[in-house]
Each structure stands twice: as structure tokens, then as C-alpha cells.
């Protein structure tokens, strides 16, 4: 009997503790649906619209060189494209990083991607045509964005030599709640994606210092490929980054957001905005985020 009672009390405490973690059901019903009206989802899902909105608010985003929505534009773009040496092609409505090609060099009429692949103009044209036709956005017509390639800050580059790292900030009603750095690895094929084996590094919101890191749910202290220490690093321009995130949350008419920011040599740049940010960040940071959300709902600042 005593043991049963103890078990019951332990279980009750655990369930109470589970209250501090934001589950998927509560994220949707409590935060995404009430704070992010469906009609404004476009501001996150359509990357071209996101960029235009942020640019209008004078926030830094990678410069858009070209956007291609129609087939007749494909031939017209050759001249413009040939003037570019380094750029990124991405579908405006793609998800999970699919359909993104990063070009880093232009030699003898052909382009070279960061992964070492050579692209002729015909190759790029085909890829852009695919994007327009909706290959990366479930068959819906899409727009291809050709934009500036962000050259990341040297310190971040040391942490993430396999590809562009980004900092995901969760923002609720204008306040930054949680932040993590996502690092590309060999396993993640150069993408900063946690599902694919990217490393998630927790950042202390106050100080901008990294304090814990995980890959596939396992705690690590050093980069799995390079062995570089990941903890105790202070992220450069941290205050500017936090302010940029807050300003983006103000510019985009959504209340519960994941804002993805890259750090270039000249400072933070917003890559994209997510209207249904994942909840894995709680595991990365080693703490549930529900209490913080409740504090904000109660009208207090953090």
C-alpha cells in the first residue's frame, strides 16, 4: 500500500512536471491557432512575401537578386544570372530545405555549388523550372527565389564548417522565449536540420552563451565531425540578433513564431520565419517553455 501511494505521488508530480512542457496539442490549440490567423500564414509560408515584409520594415534579409514565377522569364534571366558569382536558389514555398541550391563560384561559363557540383545554365534553368512547376511544393505553382548567399561569421563558421548554421528564436507576442543554434554536420548533409542529424545547441537568452548541445537526442559537448567544443561559446552580435528577432515579430502579423537567423560577417540576417515552430527546442534547452508562455499571457515581461 505504501509503495502504491508513493508511486501515485511520484506519478502526480511527473504529470505536473509534464505541464511545464509544451505538447503538440497545446501548441496548436493554445498558441498557433489563436495567435497565428490562417490568413496570415502566407507571411511565413511564402518566403518571397516574408522577405518583402521584412525589407519594408528595414530589417536585414539576404538581398533578392531575382525572382522567377513564369516560364517566359526563364530565358530572360540568363543575362542577369551570368553576372552573379555566388547565390542561392530556393523555392518560395518549399519546406525542410528541399530544392535549395547554393552556388559559390562561376568559372568558364559554368557555376560551382558548395557541394562541388558543376551547373551549366541549362541545369539551373531546369532546376528553376522544377521549382516553378511545384516539384518542391506539392505540385502547387511556386516562385523561385535567387538571392544573396550569406557568408557566415567566422566564429560560427568554425562551429559549423559543413554548412550554414542558423539560430532559431521562438518569439511569442513580441518576446523572445527560447533560442538555439542549429549546426550542419556531415550526417545532415550540410543542412542545419535536427531531424537529419544536425546538432542543436542551446543558447542562454540573457548572455548569448551556449550551454548544452544535442544530436539525435543525445547530449554532446563537442562537434561530432570536427571535435570543436560547442559549449560556453558566446554568439557574436547577440543583442543585435535578439532585437532583430523582436523587430521581425513586430513586422510579421503572427503572434507565435520561429524566426531563423543566420549570422553573416556584417551581422544577423533573417533567413525565414516559421508559423508552426517545432517543440524539440525544449529538449535542446533542457527545459519546458510553457511557464514562460504563461508568464507572457499574464502580461508580465520575462
Amino acid at each position, binding site marked *: 500500500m505504501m509503495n502504491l501511494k508513493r508511486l501515485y505521488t*511520484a506519478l502526480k*508530480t*511527473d504529470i505536473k*512536471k*509534464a*505541464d*511545464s*512542457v509544451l*505538447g*503538440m*496539442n*497545446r501548441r496548436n*490549440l*493554445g*498558441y498557433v491557432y*489563436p*495567435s497565428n490567423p490562417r490568413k496570415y500564414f502566407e507571411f511565413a509560408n511564402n518566403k518571397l512575401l516574408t522577405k518583402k515584409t521584412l525589407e519594408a520594415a528595414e530589417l536585414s534579409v539576404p538581398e533578392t537578386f531575382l525572382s522567377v514565377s513564369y516560364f517566359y522569364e526563364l530565358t530572360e534571366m540568363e543575362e542577369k544570372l551570368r553576372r552573379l558569382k555566388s547565390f542561392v536558389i530556393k523555392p518560395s514555398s518549399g519546406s*525542410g530545405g*528541399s530544392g535549395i541550391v547554393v552556388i559559390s563560384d562561376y568559372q568558364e561559363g559554368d557555376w560551382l555549388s558548395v557541394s562541388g557540383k558543376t551547373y551549366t545554365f541549362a541545369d539551373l534553368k*531546369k532546376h528553376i523550372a*522544377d521549382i516553378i*512547376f*511545384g*516539384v518542391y511544393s*506539392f*505540385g502547387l505553382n511556386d516562385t523561385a527565389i535567387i538571392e544573396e548567399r550569406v557568408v557566415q561569421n567566422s566564429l560560427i563558421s568554425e562551429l559549423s564548417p559543413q554548412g550554414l548554421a542558423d539560430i532559431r528564436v521562438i518569439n511569442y507576442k513580441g518576446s523572445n522565449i527560447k533560442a538555439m543554434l542549429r549546426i550542419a554536420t556531415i550526417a545532415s548533409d550540410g543542412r542545419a536540420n535536427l*531531424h*537529419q542529424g544536425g546538432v542543436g545547441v542551446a543558447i542562454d537568452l540573457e548572455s548569448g552563451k551556449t550551454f548544452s548541445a544535442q544530436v539525435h537526442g543525445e547530449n554532446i559537448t563537442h562537434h561530432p565531425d570536427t571535435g570543436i567544443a560547442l559549449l560556453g561559446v558566446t554568439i557574436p552580435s547577440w543583442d543585435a540578433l535578439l532585437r532583430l528577432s523582436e523587430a521581425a515579430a513586430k513586422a510579421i502579423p503572427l503572434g507565435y513564431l520561429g524566426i531563423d537567423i543566420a549570422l553573416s560577417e556584417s551581422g544577423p540576417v533573417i533567413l525565414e520565419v516559421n508559423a508552426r515552430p517545432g517543440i524539440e527546442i*525544449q*529538449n535542446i534547452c*533542457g*527545459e*519546458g517553455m*510553457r*511557464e514562460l*508562455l*504563461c508568464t507572457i*499571457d*499574464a502580461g508580465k515581461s520575462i
Partner: protein
Amino acid sequence: MRSGVKTPSYIYRFTLFILLFATFSLMGYKLFVLEYELADLIPTVGYDVEVNMQVSGHGDKMSISTYLPIGTAHQNISDERSAPDIFTTQITVDGLNRIASWQAPAVSGTHIIRYNYFVEAEHVIYDIDRDVPISEKLPDYLQPYLAPQEGIQVNDPLIEQTLHELFGEQKPDTYEALRTIHHYLQNEFQTRNFSGFTDALTALKLKEASCNGKSRLFVALTRKLGLPSRLVGGLILNQGSKKTSHQWVEVYVRGHWIPFDTINNYFAEIPKNYLRLYYGDKVLFKHTTNINFQYMFHITKKLVPRKEMKEAMYASPLNAYNMYKIFESIGISQNLLKIILMIPLGALVIVIFRNVIGIETFGTFLPALIATAARETGLMWGLIAFLAIIMVSAMIRRFLDYLQLLHSPKMAIMLTVVVISMLLTTMVAVQTSYLDLAHVSLFPIAILAITAERFAIIQEEQGFLKALRISFFTAVVITAAYAVMSSLFMQSLFIAFPELLFFLIVLNLWLGKWVGMRLSEFIRFRKLIFKAKS
């Protein structure tokens, strides 16, 4: 702790109330005013029997015949189906028996004749009055049941001697006679699995026999005592395939033919899974001698609604069954309606798996649709076919990726590939006699193509293992949806009370506001939830 979830509005509560009220008032009306019996909703077991006869010949005339069961107080035969291949079927009645015969003028090569029927039977136990003397005078039509016949040597001295040993000088009453003979054969004789013919005397001398020897001896002994008796041939129904038929006896006592089986010890009793096929000392299959002949019984256990419930519902006004007759009049069968009624229930199962348990599956309601289709193929074949089609199509899709095609034509090719693989599966299934698998063509084709596409995308973006994991979970959810949707109790319940669909909406309305942690999230966030208590 305050949360971001708004308290349910009055409109929400009002909708809940209206739907609950509609459900329970309609159910209450049926239960208390129309007197529906809930107990009758619990289904009973029935058996689908397939007689499968494989013949091969060399161009000659061929004829095959066998006995078909007849409905009695013990057994009810329905839903007879025949797949006679090139043969013409003729069904005739010969005395107490029903004979099916198949004929064809020139048969070469191998052919398969199938005949199916559905059996619902009752377990019947008879009470034999004690102290009733064996009647001296019996009507003429019972006389054949007292006479000797081949293999049943009623007047042999050995039979008489045995009866003398069992009963002495005194003539026993009916009950005692049957009791003693039954015990004698049940306990003093070894049961052997001979397949050949054993006559009564041989069985008696050897003190061992299979069912046919024991039955002939039972008949010889009872006839000698003046009790009319006969042999019964039939089948013991168990899930699976078998060739073995069974024989037992029936004895005429005061207007009733009462069953006895001294192999499995049924005294004046016939269990639910005994199927009577013929009366008399017959051979189950007959065929012309110029052929190779093989037969097999395939028996499938099925749950069916109780007869009483069906009758009760037909009888009352405003009843469910009469309602369904409207659909039947335009060609929508009750079976189809049952399936349609079960789809919302399957959807609820999926909602629970997704939102309460937190399992990721392909497509939101794909598992319910596959589970529906699996009613025809059986769960196992349904799952195998589903997984095989998905894997094959996903592989094809990877190949199409390599060719770099635009999305819509690529999806059209995927759809075509799914159709082709279905046709091939069906053809192979028919050739190899896995007829259940042949129903794979009922699968929702477009949804399979989209699922294959999802499989390929997940495989590409998150790895093959992840795609396999989701396939596994999809199979789990299909199984759960199948279990609920094919539950006969649920089917009977929804046919009797279709207003329960409102209740399903209520449950979904409630689940739609449920913000608790999913079970899988307790595992996912275990480090946060169960971390060292300090």
C-alpha cells in the same frame, strides 16, 4: 497555471448538448419504447465453408457429385455461392439429402470447382425421458431404420451376445439402453484414425475403430434393441483447411432424431461446430473414374449478428433495418452500408492514435480506408499488400526522380504503377488460389499513390529507417482500425443505433479541445519530465 487556451464558448457547449441529447433520446426511445434488446447485439459465430474440388482429365466426359447441407433446427445454411469453372451444376434432392453434381462433356487439363455456403449452427442438447420403454410398435416408414444393411450386421449372433453382456436378460428402457451403448463405445473402444470402411462386426471384434466403424456398431446395437437409428455424415467446423469428414449417429426417440457421437463423447447432444451433410451410409464425393480428383474444405470462422436481433428489428416500426431497405432498393447493400457506418469509427481510432498516443502515420485517414479494404482481403493480406505496393511504388518514384519529371505527370505514372501492381497481384492471387488477396484491387488507388509519394519524400529527407518506422506505425494503426471496424458488436450497434454517429462527433469535438500531452511526448520529453527530482 494559465494557458493560452480559451475556455470553450457557449456555442461549443450548446453543440455538444444538442448532439448528446439527439444521441441519447433516440437510443432511449429505441431501447425503452421499441424495446430493442442490447444482449441480442452481441454477435454469434458462423462458418464460411468452401468445398474446393480440383479435377484433371484428358478430354473425356466428367461428372462429380457431393452432398450439400440442408437447414435444420440445429443448422442454418445461407449465402450459397458456386464457382463451377467449365462445369454445369445441378442440385437435386434425394430423400433426406441434397446432392450437387457437376458435369462437363469434355474436360482436359486441371480445373477447380468451388462451392461456398455459410453455416450458423446452434449447440443443441436433448433431454431423454427416463423409464420410457422401447416401443414395440413403430410406423412403417421407420422400419428401414431397424433393418440390417451392408456393414451394419444387425442380426449377427455377436451383436446379440454383446447386448446380452451389456444388459443381461432384462430389456432396458430407452434411456438406459442409449446410455449404456454410448458409454460402452466411448470408453471400451480405442479410437483409430482409419480412413477406410470398417463394418460393425469388425469394430466389435477389434474393440477399436474410427468414427465410421463405431457409428455402424452403434446403429447395429440400437437397431437390434428396436430403436430406429441412422448414420449421419458431416464436417467438424474449425478454422482452417481439412479433408477429414466425420460420422455420427441419430436415434429416433418419441418423434425426434437425437444425435450421438462416441468419438468426441456427445450424448444426446450436438455442438455448434458440427455440420450435417447427409444421412445414411454414403460416400461424400463421387466422380467418374477417368479423372484425378482432389478435394479440400476451407473453413473460415466469422462473427454474425444474432438472428433474434435481426428479427426483433424487422418487427418494430421506425427500425434500423427497414431504414436500410430504402438503400437496398437503389442497389446499396446492407454490407456496404455497414462499411460506410464504420468509417467514422475508424477515423476516431486514428484521431486517438494521432492526438492522444501521438503516433505518426502516412496520411490522416489512410489507415481507416486501408482497414476498410482489408475487410475483403483479410488483415494479414491487407497489410502485406499495402506495404508491398507502397515499397514498390516508392522505388519506382525514386527512379522517376532520377529521370527528373514534373510533378503531375510523375504522379500519374505512380498511379498507373499502383494500378498495374494491383492487377498483377490479383492475377497471381487467383492463379495461386489466394482468393482473399485478389480483393486487393478494392484498395483506394489514388491514396496509395500519394502514400508512396510521401514514403519516397520521407525516405529522401529523413532516411529510409524513418520511412520504415512510419510504415510500421501505419500498419499498427491499420490493425487497430481494422479491429474496431470489423468488430461485429460495433457493426450491430451502429446498424441498430446509427444516431451514435452524433456521439462520434461529440467525442471528436471533445478531443478537438484536448490539450494534454500525447503519450509519445512523455517519452520524447522524458529527460525534462522525469529528470532527477530535486
